[in-house]
């Protein structure tokens, strides 16, 4: 998968340039249109992510993939930052790890993630990240906001208490299924994913019922009906394959 930085669209006649830079003091080479995250993973350097999913466009929503770049004061999200020649990237400094933990803790406070009674308990990316980053408790006060469950769809339900606003559902529905049933409303902490014109999912006319949104959702926010605690296991192996096939179709249309 490649994402061309703005203004750098290149073709076969004008191919992407190769460059070298450093990640954690290791020399790596990359195409200029590969994100720092992609290059790190190609080189076996682990960077935690939540909103990123192979096969979908990047969003930069969760900020868990932040890295330090020498000479830049801000921490940069590696999924939407592209390397430059001789750049020095640090993925695991104490500063970076501390901020990742804070981000994760804030995600837990913003909604009501009650793992023990969640359909995704044991199969949840948020839960796994808390283990990976060593978050054993949350240092901020929980907000306990009021959020609804919409079970109006015949096969699926959405529990906004578990949503982390990664917007994978929005992206997969738009980019892969082509329906764009999902979208987002509001700003900041009051943001919420919606179906069609903020109406019950079951009444959303654009929804094809394909369930891709459910499978890509990292938490228990989207689930299949009939699944009880810890029973919702997501299957998302289809995604890179579907993306490849859609790409092939597009190419054939252009001929």
């Amino acid at each position, binding site marked *: 998968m490649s994402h061309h930085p703005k203004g750098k669209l290149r073709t076969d006649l004008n191919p992407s340039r190769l460059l070298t830079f450093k990640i954690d003091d290791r020399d790596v080479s990359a195409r200029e249109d590969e994100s720092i995250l992609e290059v790190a993973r190609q080189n076996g350097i682990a960077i935690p992510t939540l909103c990123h999913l192979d096969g979908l466009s990047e969003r930069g929503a969760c900020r868990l993939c932040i890295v330090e770049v020498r000479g830049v004061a801000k921490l940069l999200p590696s999924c939407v930052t592209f390397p430059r020649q001789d750049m020095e990237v640090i993925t695991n400094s104490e500063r970076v790890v501390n901020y990742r933990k804070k981000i994760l803790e804030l995600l*837990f406070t913003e909604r*009501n*993630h*009650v*793992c*023990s*009674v*969640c359909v995704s*308990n*044991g199969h949840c990316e948020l*839960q796994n990240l*808390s*283990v990976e980053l*060593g978050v*054993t*408790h*949350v240092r901020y*006060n*929980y907000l*306990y*906001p*009021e959020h609804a469950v919409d079970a109006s769809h015949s096969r699926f339900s959405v529990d906004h208490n578990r949503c982390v606003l990664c917007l994978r559902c929005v992206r997969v529905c738009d980019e892969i299924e082509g329906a764009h049933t999902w979208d987002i409303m509001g700003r900041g902490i009051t943001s919420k994913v919606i179906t069609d014109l903020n109406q019950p999912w079951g009444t959303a006319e654009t929804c094809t019922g394909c369930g891709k949104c459910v499978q890509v959702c990292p938490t228990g926010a989207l689930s299949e009906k009939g699944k009880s605690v810890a029973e919702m296991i997501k299957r998302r192996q289809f995604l890179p394959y579907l993306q490849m096939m859609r790409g092939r179709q597009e190419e054939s249309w252009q001929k």
Partner: protein
Amino acid sequence: MAKIGLATTWLDGCSGCHMSFLDLDEGLIALADKVEIVYGPLVDYKTFPEHADVTLVEGAVSSEADKKNILNIRARSGVLVSFGDCAVTANVPGMRNRYPVEAVLQRGYVENAEPPLAGSGEAAFQVVPQLCPHARPVHEFVHVDVFLPGCPPPPEAIFYLLQELLAGRIPDMRGRTRFGA
């Protein structure tokens, strides 16, 4: 070696963490040589002792009585352990937090009573502990030394925690348990 004094207690919890503690099975026998249980629902002491070396606190802080108790327990405890998800995150007791206390009591003691309670339920509300507006994690009220998440924490994690404390170390619980475990 003198035995250490271990206290266990529960606030707003279901006792499941204590059940997991009992699931240590023969681990309990190994601990019996090194640990004296000085307070808790598993023994018959009526008041919290002047000092406990280690205290496991299960449950969220949910009522005025919990608030009073946790301050007392903190003052009299050496190492205070947040024992299980309710203590660490408020977990299931926290699910009432978005509703007013009156609505919670009405649902619990009047609407769901079997047989249905006659009248407004005012009489029942007088005898149950006075609920705070929210059930909240223990560490929002007092300093907590070790966090042991899990619903309940697995017996292996509890055993590891106690072994480490007995060896004089503050245990690193990462990778041994998690929220909802």
